[in-house]
């Protein structure tokens, strides 16, 4: 009998899955030192995520080394979990912009964020399943992905940092249920391990048309 056979099957829930990656965190740590800069940056990020997520249904927060995997849950409506997640991510970006203006350049935080919604296996302080992989695939998309996309936006229009990408599922929810954010297709992409073509969207904040979520540099 396999070891996994003895364990109960994990609970399955629909959650909004957010992957946050700290841009150039390894480079920064190598240049300025993990103990001098790197660990403080990650601790600050963790603290800010806690602040913005706590009241918005943040249920899981797991380190990925240079970022975090987060999930958001809403007991009434899975779609609301996606909206809360996007809300939390934009609030996080806003707070980071403020923080970056107050700290030295090497301690600035810059992020890449991706949001997806789907069923996940709940394991202690972690989540498993293909939808988690999908969120990571979305986060990996960069300017360099666009030449292999269909109907892509010009690479120059794709921000280098401090932006939010989302799946078709989340884009649909945002379009239907809120006017607070805009969604714009960046093209059809093939995501490793997933069949077919996926339309990927960038979420922009209409409250702050030239804000960090729109991809401005925040040095």
């Amino acid at each position: 009998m396999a070891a996994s056979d003895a364990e109960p099957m994990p609970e399955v829930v629909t959650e909004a899955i957010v992957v946050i990656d700290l841009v150039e965190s390894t480079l920064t740590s190598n240049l300025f030192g993990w103990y001098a800069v790197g660990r403080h940056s990650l601790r600050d990020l963790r603290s800010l995520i806690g602040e913005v997520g706590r009241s918005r249904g943040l249920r899981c927060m797991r380190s990925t080394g240079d970022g975090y995997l987060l999930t958001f849950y809403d007991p009434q409506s899975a779609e609301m979990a996606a909206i809360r997640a996007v809300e939390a991510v934009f609030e996080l970006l806003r707070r980071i912009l403020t923080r970056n203006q107050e700290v030295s350049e090497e301690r600035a935080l810059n992020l890449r964020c991706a949001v997806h919604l789907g069923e996940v296996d709940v394991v202690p302080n972690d989540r498993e399943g293909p939808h988690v992989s999908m969120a990571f695939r979305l986060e990996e998309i960069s300017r360099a992905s666009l030449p292999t996309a269909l109907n892509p936006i010009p690479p120059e229009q794709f921000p280098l940092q401090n932006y939010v990408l989302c799946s078709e599922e989340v884009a649909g929810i945002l379009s239907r249920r809120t006017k607070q954010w805009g969604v714009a297709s960046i093209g059809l992409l093939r995501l490793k391990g997933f069949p077919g073509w996926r339309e990927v969207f960038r979420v922009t904040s209409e409250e702050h048309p030239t804000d960090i979520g729109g991809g401005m540099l925040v040095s």
Partner: protein
Amino acid sequence: MQAPASLRKPLAIVFCDIAGSTHLTAQEGDLVASGVFREFFEHAGRLSREHHGLIIKFIADSFLATFENIDDVMPFVISIKSLLSRNSTFVGRFSGLYFSLHYGNVTCIETSYGSDVLGEAVNVAVYLNELKVLNEIIISQAALERMPSDYRTRAGASESRSFKGVGEVEFRRLKLRGL
């Protein structure tokens, strides 16, 4: 920054997906697989030029090509298919090819990474490819109407499918065997 120059025009859009690429990578490793793909794409590029077409991009194990004259498409498709049975590098390595063809208006642009085509017509060609059956070409009705009569008579029954963001698309299947 000045927007790149663009030109909107009708083109025949071909999408081709290689079947068996995952198996090839699993069996022979990614180094061998990437060499095989590179050679396949070199041949595809050469054949597209010979048939007055343009390969817009190679994407993993597939490619997107355009043709000004739709009459050039089938000779190109047949020549690509022949590669699999005639070129020793490819014999036994790929299971086959999935083709799709659509005709429509696209915007042609020059980008920092080369030429690209944009527009709903591109999506139609790609979505049709997802209805794939090995060694068939799936042809939209818009494309078929412009093709030589020989192909129109060989094409199968009319089918239609609704695609997200595009709507209903009418198409037919044409078997490549015997062409």
